[in-house]
């Protein structure tokens, strides 16, 4: 989990323009919405493409993305549930 979470953190910092320092993002920090990092739909697309490239996991539609991209932990869980990472 920790290794996957760290790779996701790297992905966030390299593919997105974050206002928050990447080590301040916990596994449970909400990635979207005003209480979290405040990412938007374009960031979501960027993340989906990044996850596919880095981990080989496919996020097929918006409904899946809403669930999977909630936090670093939910992304890591999804990667593991797909047998990747």
């Amino acid at each position, binding site marked *: 989990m920790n290794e996957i979470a760290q790779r996701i953190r790297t992905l966030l910092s390299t593919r997105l323009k974050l206002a928050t320092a990447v080590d301040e993002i916990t596994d449970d920090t909400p990635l979207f919405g005003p209480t979290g990092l405040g990412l938007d*739909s*374009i960031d*979501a*697309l960027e993340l*989906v*493409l990044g996850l*596919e490239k880095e981990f080989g996991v496919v*996020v097929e*539609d*918006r409904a899946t993305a809403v669930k999977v991209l909630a936090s670093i932990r939910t992304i890591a869980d999804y990667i593991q549930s797909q047998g990747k990472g």
Partner: protein
Amino acid sequence: MAGDPVSHLPHGISFRFVDRVLQIVPGDRVVALKNVTVNDPYLQDHFPGNPLMPGVLLVESMAQTAGLLLPEGSSAVLAQIKEARFRSPVIPGDQIRIEAVRRGGLGALHRFEVVALVNGIPAAEAEIVLAVVMPNAEKQP
């Protein structure tokens, strides 16, 4: 896709920056042409005596070409332009060959890699994200 694909663009004729589609694989890739002519209205003042295709209109041309890959009847707007590079000037007499490939998407967003070539040499390239704002009622993207 029935008829001339260019006619399916939502843009009015004076804001159409694609002349002809050479090849299209709907939802995947498209190759289109745009001819640049000395009496194109925007070249009169860009620049007087030194006509040069504005870079933003090259991007518009590339975005419209990419838009041809969306389901027929869709209207889309620019959501993101990344890694745009303008490598060489485009001037009257040039024929621009625009090649767009869809590279994924999510919900209403569609991402494309687009290159504009003149005489086989890249004049401009960009990654473009389009957001569908009025999806075709029958074919949701």
